[in-house]
Each structure stands twice: as structure tokens, then as C-alpha cells.
């Protein structure tokens, strides 16, 4: 009996996997409002040097932007994201990002197991790009991130930040 149930569950699980992997071509579904309103986007390029981040350029490009991440219910979450805000400070578009300013790096073993791990990489400098819809309603862009732990073995490592993200950069868009 137990064996039968297990087998039945196994079949169900496989079906779920198939369903969840949605092996049918995705239907053209509702596009984000921003994407249908305008094919224009703002490409924002930032530079970072350690913890310091500054906007380097703002460029309008005729292109579609990827669908937004959830614009509600994220206030206590940890991580790194960019938001496009309107004049009332309402989030119009949000992009969750793998913290581009993190002070460590992914390391690939190259062995047959293709193992991945991380290693501290302090004093990193670089650039990163955020693309948001170019819409009349857009007033400002903000960047938010969690702070790294200040004590213990995880001290200072941004990838191990545990607290909710807070806004650390805001600028008004050029009209």
C-alpha cells in the first residue's frame, strides 16, 4: 500500500515538474503597463568604488525593458534593488539585482565537479547598469541594499548581509 502511494506521488511529482517547467511555449501574456505604454527605456550606468556608488550616465534608448519585480510587499526584505518612483514616491518599476557592489566573488574550481564557491574580493571597483522604463510618470530612481554584518566571521561581506535593505542612493531623472 505504502509502495503504491509512494509510486503515485512519484508520478504526481513528475507531472508537477513538467508543469512547473512549463515546457509549452509561453503565451503572450499581459505586458507590464510600462512596456506597452512606451518602447523607450532609460539606461543608467553607475560606477562603484568599494561602498561608494555614483551615477555616471543616463541614456534614453528605444527598447523594451524586462518585466518588473514585485512593487509591493518588499519593505522588510534583504538584498539589492533599483526602483523607479513617481512624484508621490510610489514604486512604478523594480529590479531586484545580485548585489553588483559586493566585495566578494564567485570562484569556479574547474574540476570535474564544476564546484562553485566564494572568496572575499575587497576594494572592488567597477560599473553596473540599471535599465528602467522611460515613462512620463517616472520622477526618480533609488537604489537600496542591505548592510553587511559588522561583527563575527561574516564581518563586512555584503553577500552575507542579513538586515532589510535601506535606500542609499536617490536621484531625480533628467526630463
Amino acid at each position: 500500500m505504502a509502495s503504491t502511494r509512494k509510486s503515485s506521488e512519484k508520478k504526481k511529482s513528475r507531472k508537477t515538474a513538467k508543469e512547473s517547467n512549463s515546457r509549452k511555449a509561453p503565451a503572450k501574456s499581459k505586458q507590464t503597463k510600462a512596456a506597452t505604454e512606451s518602447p523607450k527605456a532609460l539606461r543608467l550606468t553607475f560606477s562603484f568604488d568599494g561602498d561608494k556608488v555614483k551615477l555616471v550616465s543616463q541614456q534614453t534608448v528605444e527598447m523594451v525593458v524586462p518585466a518588473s519585480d514585485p512593487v509591493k510587499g518588499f519593505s522588510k526584505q534583504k538584498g539589492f534593488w533599483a526602483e523607479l518612483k513617481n512624484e508621490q514616491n510610489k514604486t512604478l518599476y523594480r529590479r531586484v539585482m545580485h548585489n553588483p557592489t559586493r566585495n566578494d566573488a564567485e570562484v569556479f574550481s574547474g574540476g570535474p565537479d564544476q564546484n562553485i564557491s566564494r572568496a572575499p574580493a575587497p576594494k572592488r571597483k567597477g560599473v553596473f547598469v540599471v535599465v528602467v522604463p522611460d515613462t512620463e510618470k517616472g520622477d526618480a530612481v533609488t537604489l537600496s541594499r542591505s548592510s553587511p554584518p559588522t561583527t563575527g566571521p561574516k564581518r563586512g561581506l555584503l553577500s552575507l548581509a542579513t538586515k532589510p535593505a535601506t535606500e542609499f542612493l536617490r536621484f531625480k531623472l533628467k526630463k
Partner: protein
Amino acid sequence: MGTSDGTVLGSTKIVDAGPETKRWNVVITSDGYRSNEMAQFALDAKQFADTLLATAPFDLLRTAINVFRVDVTSKDSGADDPSKCGGTGAKPRTYFDATFCTNGIRRLLVGNNSRVLKVISKQVPQWHMALLAVNSTIHGGSGGSVATFSKSGGAIEIALHEMGHSAFGLADEYEYYAGCSESGHDTHSGSEPSQPNITTNKNRATTKWRSLILPSTAVPTTTNANCANCDPQPTPVPPGTIGLFEGADYFHCRVYRPEFNCRMRNLGAPFCGVCQQVIVKKLTPFLPV
């Protein structure tokens, strides 16, 4: 050193799904390829494009994706391979100055990303995902705004994993930082992560990917009995089962991933169902109407 060490030749659309203004545009450029090696770069770029479009869920999103090749020559072949990391000490003259041993890490291969983005933005202003192919057989790569990878076997897997981070905001699903027996990575005591493929919420009714978990799947699906180490148990469910598997985001316990395995956990594995769903959702606006 730098732009005097090569030439930007131009761009070629190698996968054409439609106008750049409406599609998701992946751009791959070259470093460490001499002018007489550009045919090889064309093959390498094609191999990447073929692999990408054969990878789920991109295989179902072909009509949304353009791939461009931006040809950039270098005076010399390869990438810097500093001897301080055990390399040969080679210092070829290349356009994007790609080097192994970045931050003293042997396999960390990084080019001048600022220069890469400048060139790509000029050649394909509508780019969404930037990649740098480095003409070296040494295994290596890196993420960030530019996913960088070498020509070693399996290095395309690095590019796909990094694309998961850069283009789709996916988190790492491995449960350790530098290795399983490390200290300080026992329990994930933080807030709910913003990334869509990891969670601290083990409530079946409210967790992020609840709609994909079958009623018959146990939640949590795996529990780590010893939080001082990685969970050694094999999967208790068939591959592809979506549930809550303990261990992810560099911590052994109290954080969950959606499937036992995923490309965001192990190179060479397929993207898990939740990661695939995220990718499909992000790229839906690029599908033809």
C-alpha cells in the same frame, strides 16, 4: 595596453528574432583573439548562442531573443595569467585587458567591464545582456554587469549561471560560502531575501513559490540535521519536484531553495522550475505580439 592593443571591427546579428527595439538582446564580444582568429570567435559565439537557445527555458523563448556578436581584435592571443596565482606569467596585449587572478583568485577572469559596456553600447545600443568571451583554454570566468568566460570545457556554464544573476536577479542556491565545514554559515538569521529563488518562509500557504508545490510534497522537503555542515542527504524526491529544500544563499540552515538541484547551485544542472518561471516572466514582454 588597452584600446591601442586591438580594433573594434563591428557587430553581426547571429540570431535574428526581430527588431532590436522589441527583443531581448544578448551581446557577446571578444578579447584575446587576434585578427586571424576572428573566424574562431565567430564559431565560439555561435556555440554560445546555440547552447543558450537549447537551454530551458530559453529554448521556448527563441522568438524573443536576438544574439549579436561584436568583433574586437587583439594584438595577442589569450589573457593575462599572473604567476602570483600559479599562472604562466603571460601578459598578452589585448583590447579589454582580461586577466585571471583578479583579487588574487586564480580562476577569477575579469576584463575591463567599463570598456566592454562602452563598446557594446555603441555597437548595439539596445543590449540587455553583455558577455565577454576570452580566448584562453584556462578555466575561469566572472559575473557582474559583464558575464565573462574562457574557452575551457564547461566555461559556457559559468556564463549561463552568471546570466541568472545579472539578467534575472537570481540568487545562489549553494549552501556554503567557501566550503561546507566552515564556521559562521550555520543558520541564515536574516530577513526574507528579495531574490525570487530563495526564501526563509517555510509556510506552505505563503511561501514564494507556493503555487508550484504539490499538496503531496512534504514541506520542508529536506531538513538539515546538522547545521554546522552542509546537508549530505540525497534527494528524497524525484528530480524536478518543487518544494522547500533547506540550505541556500551561503547558509546551511533556515533558508530554502525550490528544488534539490539547479544551475544556480551546481554548474551543469538545468535551471530549476522556479528559476525558469522567473526567466519566462522577465522575458514575456519581448515575445512577438
